[in-house]
Structures are given as C-alpha cells and as structure tokens.
C-alpha cells in the first residue's frame, strides 16, 4: 500500500505551489540542521515578491464591494501563514549566525551560505560584540590572554556547529549505494524510510534534496 508515500512525496504541480512547498521544506531543514544551510535566495525572493503583490491587491480591494469581504479574510489568513514560515526561517538562520558568528567568519565556504543582508548583519554584530567585550574586560587582560578565538589546548574558543548531532530524516529518493554510518555499519536509503542518524552522514543528501529533515 504505497499510496501514502507517493502522496506524501508528490511534487506540487504549479510553480506557486512548488515555491511554497520548497520554502516549507527549507524551513524544516534549517530548523533541524546543526549547520547553516545555503540561503534559499530564489524561493525567498519570489515568495516575498508575491506577498508584496498580494498585500497591494488587498489594499486596493478594501475600497470595493462588501461581497468580496470574506475573500479578503481568507487572503489575510494565508498571508499570515506565509509570513510565519518566512519569519521562522529567517529567525532560525539569525539564531545560528548569532551562535556561530566567529566560526562563520573564519570559514569563507560557510560565509557563502549567507545572504548579503545576513553577511552585513554578521559583520556588524561581531564588531559590536568584540568592541563590547574589549571595553568591558578584555582590555584588562594581558595581551596573550585577550583573544576570542584561542585554539590552544584541546578545545577551541570558537563555537562550531556539532555536525555529529543526530537528526530525524526522511528519504525522498531511493539512493543506490548504502550509506556508511560507522566502521562497519551501513544503512539502506529507500524512498519513504525514516531514520535517526548523525547529521554528517546525510549532510550532502540534504543539500541535494534526496533526503529531508523532519
């Protein structure tokens, strides 16, 4: 009885529906992934544009006949839903940028995953933080001890995302080779499977969309 998996993983048909579905999936992935994923620039831009257009339509229609009053309510409900997903998506990313600011700055490949607005935010936030720490107490410490990115010893001062963190995921497309999860342990990845694994094992598949986090 495969009807459910197919229904669940069925791609929506129109571009509008695809974008929304894609946005929701990006939101889920971003929430559950320990690292910062590439910014879904295209989808977010298109959805934001449609949001803006819809708000305009709403405002112009407010003057007209009351018969459409109920339709406006439905439109507004949907707007709130879309804004909720968008806001949560952006907030999740901001939260990760806050936590791993130094790590991101030190890794140009990760920096690429940020949108330009996020990059500006990161820079200014880190500058503010650094200045604050400096003036609060770092200045008082001897020069050799006032670094914020000390890596001497076993632990680094820079907080990096825990890539081995376990995540729940669903397989969207059957993958040929079995996935290596440990020394001698492999798992099969068949469409519809739900697994709890360490994130690093499926990080690449999440990016391609073969696997999504749930």
């Amino acid at each position, binding site marked *: 009885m495969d009807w459910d998996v197919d229904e669940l993983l069925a791609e929506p048909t129109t571009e509008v529906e695809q974008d*929304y579905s894609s946005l929701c999936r990006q939101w889920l992935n971003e929430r559950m992934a320990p690292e910062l994923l590439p910014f879904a620039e295209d989808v977010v831009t298109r959805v934001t544009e449609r949001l803006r257009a819809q708000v305009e339509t709403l405002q112009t229609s407010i003057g007209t006949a009351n018969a459409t009053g109920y339709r406006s309510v439905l439109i507004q409900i949907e707007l709130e839903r*879309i804004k909720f997903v968008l806001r949560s998506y952006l907030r999740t990313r901001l939260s990760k940028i806050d936590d791993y600011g130094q790590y991101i700055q030190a890794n140009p490949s990760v920096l690429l995953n940020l949108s330009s607005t996020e990059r500006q935010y990161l820079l200014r936030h880190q500058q503010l933080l650094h200045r604050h720490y400096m003036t609060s107490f770092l200045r008082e410490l001897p020069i050799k001890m006032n670094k914020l990115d000390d890596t001497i010893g076993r632990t680094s001062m820079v907080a990096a995302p825990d890539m081995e963190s376990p995540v729940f995921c669903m397989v969207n497309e059957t993958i040929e080779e079995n996935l290596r999860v440990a020394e001698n342990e492999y798992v099969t990845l068949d469409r519809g499977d739900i*697994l709890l694994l360490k994130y690093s094992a499926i990080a690449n598949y999440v990016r391609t969309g073969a696997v999504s986090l*749930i």
Partner: protein
Amino acid sequence: MALPRELEATFSPEEVEFLAGNEYTDIVPLETMDQLPLVSATIPIMKPPRKCRVPLWLALELKRQHRARIVPPEWLDLSNLQSLQEQEMEIDMFSKMPFRWLETGHLLLKACPDDIEDVEEVRRILLTIREARQSKARAGLEAVNEVQLALDNLGAMEINEIRPLFRETMNRMRKIVQVSEEE
C-alpha cells in the same frame, strides 16, 4: 534569542499542526466562490455541490464559517481504521499510518465531527492506535545506539514528541562510545 530556546531542539506541536494544514483535502462547498489566487496556490472556482480540492487550513476555515463541508480523507474511514488497528496490535513495528495521521485526525475530529461517519467509534480507534504506538515508541528507546535507528511509518507528531529524548540519548551514547574508544 532570535529563536526561542524551546524551539531549538524540536518543533512545537502547533508548528506540526501548521504543517498538516498545508496538506490538500476535498471539500463540498455550500456557496459559490470565484477563483481565489493566493500566494501559495490558486484556489479553484467553487460551485456546489461539486467537490473541490483545497489546503486543509482553508477547508477548516470554510467549515468554521459554515461555507463548506469537509470530505474526510480515505484513510479516516471506519473499516480502514479497524484493519489498521488490528495490524497495529499484531506487529511489533509501526503499522503504515499516513504521515500526518495524528495531527490531521485531531484537527478533523475537532472541526467537523458531523462530516465523519461513526465519529465516536473513529475517535476511539484512533486513541487505541495512538496508545499502542506510544508504547512501541517507548520500547524503541532501548534500540537506540550511537549510530542509527530506523523508524519507518512513524508519524510527524509522534517523531516530534520523541525527538528531544531520542536525540539526547543518541548524543550521550555517542559520547560514551567516543570516550571508550579513546581508552
């Protein structure tokens, strides 16, 4: 701070319900309505008594306003649920429930009990299935190792419930294994 601490590890039940609201469902409109272009979809023209396929959130809203009746999904039918219940009781694994069965069932039972046949029996069966699966999930905790766990057929809400505990358990096992390997 950008994201509240409680939401860092898992989703809130409301968010899981929100996602269930995106699923499409059939309704029977009670009033005509022109095509409605939305940001996430274009809602087709509604002409009673012809059925119409809309997102669940919209169906629930229309039902609330007495502008439509909701057609329960195929799986939410008494005989189907009865066989699912039997399956659930027989096997150790999780039986094949629709991915969003718990939250969708809950939303529909709350919003449109009058559109569901034998609704009380359906409610009872869903509860039984829920309890059976919950105890299986609890037993499944023993199977958690530091590497992987297969949880086929588990529902979205159920996963969300066990997520913090299972993740933390796996984390700790990982650390234990790590330390023991270093020795």
